């Protein structure tokens, strides 16, 4: 099938770089697998090649969109096929996409020096966002601001002393045990529990086949999943950096954390905060979020969460923590409805409000009043001490959860 042995590998390598530019992990083993796939299916149909590429390079639905964009960008200017509908081009030409115009591609997608700086994580997780996968212009991040909502860059360059303190404070609790649940996995234990035939029999051999000592297995405890939803709208501006740091610290001391930020739309930042270095992680968050310091539509964002994410991240009795001041410019009845649903789907729903720290604060904003009936714990989050309070609240959520707030019927709220 392969007529020009040098041209194809070269093009595959270039294709791999293009994929990495689009944030897809195109490791060498994948490239090799793709080459093997091409040897199996040939180049007769562009759609088949694309499907094979998807099977090899894509690992989730969001990546699929990016792969399609990258594929079209790369192969459309190659000679593989001249039009999107054109199939069956069996000549030598079709099998050597390099021969004609690989050079412009190289300069267009791969920055000089060839280091394909992988834009890691997915920048456009929020489903329903009007993301048209466009070509990434020359190696900068400015394209993420091309949305109408881009409201200025967030400067995440310096650590203030308070933040250093926070990092220090949280890192001291590295082995924090928050919100456990009983998992279905068992471990050898003593006393009650399920009968462990294997270990009992083993032990009986030592007693000449007499099962004197009955061994059991007990269920293990496991950290609950924690889902954080953090408000980053204008009114939260003062706190957002500190809170994102808090989220980062939670992620790296607990592990099982899903994180989202919202203002006028919901953005998932779980992948971004996976980076160990807090400054890099926050930079990455800053460049993936389009609605910094803008308005707030909590109801719409929660709806988005409930529809698109809840089934994926709340499956195992997760604790949901919303961090927001409750200023909402969206649909209030929608907010109440979605809060009710969110409470039902989560094991415990906690709301952290930075304003709650003020001595005279009463939850009087309409948004906060609509949401409050469905919140299990309503806690302040304006300084380090208040965050420590959160830790206590989480610790109380154990195998037996504290009584939940009984929500009044929806009709009374709206």
């Amino acid at each position, binding site marked *: 099938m392969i007529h020009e042995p040098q041209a194809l590998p070269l093009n595959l390598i270039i294709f791999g770089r293009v994929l990495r530019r689009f944030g897809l992990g195109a490791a060498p083993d994948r490239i090799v697998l793709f080459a093997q796939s091409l040897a199996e*299916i040939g180049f007769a149909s562009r759609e*088949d090649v694309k499907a094979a590429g*998807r099977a090899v390079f894509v690992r989730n639905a969001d990546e699929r969109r990016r792969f399609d964009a990258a594929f079209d960008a790369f192969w459309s200017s190659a000679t593989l096929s001249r039009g999107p509908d054109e199939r069956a081009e069996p000549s030598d030409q079709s099998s050597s996409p390099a021969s004609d115009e690989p050079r412009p591609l190289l300069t267009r997608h791969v920055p000089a020096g060839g280091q394909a700086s992988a834009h890691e994580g997915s920048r456009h997780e929020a489903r329903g966002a009007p993301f048209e996968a466009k070509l990434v212009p020359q190696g900068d991040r400015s394209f993420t601001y091309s949305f109408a909502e881009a409201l200025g860059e967030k400067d995440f360059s310096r650590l203030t002393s308070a933040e250093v303190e926070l990092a220090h404070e949280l890192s001291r609790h590295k082995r924090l045990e928050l919100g456990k649940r009983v998992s279905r*996995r068992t471990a050898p234990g003593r006393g009650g529990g399920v009968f462990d035939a294997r270990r*009992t*029999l083993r032990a*009986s051999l030592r007693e000449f*086949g007499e099962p004197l000592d009955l061994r059991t297995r007990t269920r293990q405890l496991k950290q609950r999943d924690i889902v954080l939803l953090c408000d980053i709208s204008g009114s939260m501006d003062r706190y957002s950096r500190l809170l994102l740091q808090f989220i980062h610290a939670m992620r790296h001391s607990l592990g099982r954390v899903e994180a989202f930020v919202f203002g006028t739309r919901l953005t998932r930042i779980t992948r971004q905060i996976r980076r160990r270095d807090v400054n890099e992680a926050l930079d990455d968050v800053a460049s993936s979020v389009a609605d910094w310091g803008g308005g707030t539509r909590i109801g719409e964002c929660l709806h988005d969460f409930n529809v698109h994410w809840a089934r994926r991240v709340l499956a195992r009795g997760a604790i949901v923590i919303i961090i927001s001041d409750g200023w909402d410019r969206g649909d209030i009845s929608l907010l109440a409805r979605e809060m009710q649903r969110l409470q039902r789907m989560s094991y415990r729903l906690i709301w952290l409000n930075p304003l709650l720290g003020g001595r005279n604060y009463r939850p009087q904003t309409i948004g906060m009043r609509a949401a409050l009936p469905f919140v299990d714990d309503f806690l302040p989050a304006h300084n380090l001490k208040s965050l420590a309070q959160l830790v206590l609240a989480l610790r109380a959520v154990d195998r037996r959860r504290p009584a939940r707030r009984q929500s009044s019927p929806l009709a009374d709220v709206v």
Partner: protein
Amino acid sequence: MSRIPDSIEAVSRLLEERRYIADRSLAVSIFLGLRLNKPLFLEGEAGVGKTEVAKVLASGLQRRMIRLQCYEGLDVNHAVYEWNYARQILHIRLAEARGAQAASAETEREIFGPEFLIKRPLLQAIDDRDEEPAVLLIDEIDRADEEFEAFLLELLSDFTVTVPEIGTFTAKHPPIVVLTSNRTREVHDALKRRCLYHWIDYPDLAREAQITEAKVPGISRALAREAAAFVASLRTEALYKQPGVAETIDWASALVALGKTTLDENVATETIGALLKYQEDVKKIRQSGLSGRVHEAKKAAASA
């Protein structure tokens, strides 16, 4: 026993013969999985026919199908092997009765021999006496926990299982592996990297009508199209749980059972529970007006 298909068309044909109507890209993924001996990782919303792929492959290739349903806490004892303790104890008793030293090394070797081993799905798939490899379906991997995922990682890369008391089992022919996930949890990238990944989307209107027609006996072509169009219109709404193809088939069967040959507002109102599984969703769709939606669906069905 039949051979591995030698072209993408052959895969499509094989699927179609068993009434599985797949789009081309799925056929490509399956073909590559078979040719390159790679596990196939199928992800998609509930009810789009992920599990069905393995069943159809097994029957099409005339292979044994071994299914492992995943759940949290799934461990080696349930997935790979377990000793038959009752028989072991009985054997010790018999040895005693014969006057042998019960705890002798001899007896111990005997009771940890192959005939006391219960093979669970993964070991069955690997320790394959047949000449042809089996189809191993690892269903809903997202329900298992990370610990099991890590174990699977090892298994899928070299297809060997070690039982300490007996030794190592190695697959003569690696089984054809299909993994499915409903995405209730992100499966680790390392596992996906061992596999070919395919996201099964909801089918387009024409294909869904075709599927409905193939799966629901006695349905008219017109009704199948109308049902598919109606479900497609539901999927454009922001619902908590969108209806899958399985729901379309259930619903179409209900329509046929009610003796309908065409869709109308009344029957849609009565049977909407076959499609929507949350009260909020049902309410939302009822409020948005079913008659208009039925009308639109009929128009779409007629024009498509």
